[in-house]
């Protein structure tokens, strides 16, 4: 086992700013899966998510010279990805759906009744995680999956740090409510 000696993200960005295509390939390979999953959880469409990650990394290619290192590269990438995903959702809502229909696509998970039948707590938890609103899914993913600190999550979403904490609190509260509906009482909230 050896310590990682890969080129640091910040170095890749400075090379990309100078037009190094190979550095762009390395950065893309390093982050494509994470950015894709983050976007997919928001837009819930694989083809759209793939289009969006191309756009995200194209922005990186164009804007690398402006990266100031105030956040980590992964935080910067997720910020761009979030903006692209929300813009895409807005366009989709405007062109195809009214607000009610847009809300309806939030939830493609099993109903709580179906979850009850599953009996398996882990499976029920996963179904309830899927059933959360986009806002709640996003904060849960950022903290648990993308391992973002309070400060980084605030930077990505563009909200104050205290709001990040309360948003996650309410996301978890909603998760507990969904679990209770599914027959699993965690005794909280």
């Amino acid at each position, binding site marked *: *086992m050896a*310590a990682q000696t890969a080129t640091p993200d910040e170095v890749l960005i400075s090379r990309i700013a*100078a037009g190094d*295509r190979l550095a762009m390939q390395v950065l893309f390979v390093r982050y494509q899966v994470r950015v894709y*999953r983050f976007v997919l959880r928001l837009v819930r469409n694989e083809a759209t998510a793939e289009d969006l990650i191309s756009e995200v990394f194209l922005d990186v290619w164009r804007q690398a010279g402006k990266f100031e290192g105030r956040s980590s590269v992964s935080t910067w990438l997720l910020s761009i990805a979030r903006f692209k995903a929300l813009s895409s959702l807005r366009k989709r809502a405007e062109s195809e759906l009214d607000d009610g229909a847009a809300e309806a696509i939030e939830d493609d998970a099993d109903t709580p009744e179906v979850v009850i039948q599953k009996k398996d707590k882990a499976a029920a938890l*996963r179904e309830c*995680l899927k059933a959360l609103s986009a806002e709640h899914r996003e904060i849960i993913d950022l*903290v648990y999956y993308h391992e973002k600190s309070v400060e980084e999550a605030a930077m990505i979403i563009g909200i104050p740090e205290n709001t990040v904490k309360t948003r996650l609190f309410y996301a978890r509260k909603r998760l507990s409510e969904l679990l209770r509906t599914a027959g699993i009482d965690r005794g909280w909230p």
Partner: protein
Amino acid sequence: MTTKEDARAEISMLLPWYAAGTLGVAEARRVAEAIEQDPELAARLAEIREEATETLLLNESLGAPSRRAADKLFAAIDAEQASNPRPYKRKFNLPSWLTEKLARASPRTLLLAASAATLIIALQGGLLIGSISRDPAPGYRTASAPDSVITTGPQLLVNFAPSATVADIEAALKEAGGVIVDGPAAGIYRVQIGPANLDQAGIERVIQMLRDRPDIVRFVAPAS
């Protein structure tokens, strides 16, 4: 000053970041002390770890983008390059040069380079520093696969605790008979356990062995 209940509520709000290992040192210590004295907080932390595990598995189940995303991106980059060439010419950039050298350096070189960088900063600021710390900052180091990679056998998805050292991880994997064969992707490693014909009970035993080390392994699950 806050009341005891307020303090508990504040700590409770920080538990997800404590579980993820993304709190600062002082805050993490404060949360750890509170958990030790409060069984209810400890129970909530256990719930949060379950949520985190299922969130990781849910995201892992989403797969990866197809080749189309890369093709589209690099076609767009090539088109831009063709219409507005940005020939790659590496410019000397001190911070980038230092960062790259530090990342590739051996611990001994790293120590010297860290001292040199500190000196440059001190000189730039016109300050005379009497003494500077020569200890490199402790931190999480990413593991990679050892030479003898098992090529067949069941695989697990493993997320190591941020506080676990390379030696800790190495020892835990050795005990479990596992080797890292891929990762990390979003903090998750693919660990192969052998032999190839290991039955379900054997796999469960290895998983339990790793779960029994929460100080090193944050979560472990069979890879699909």
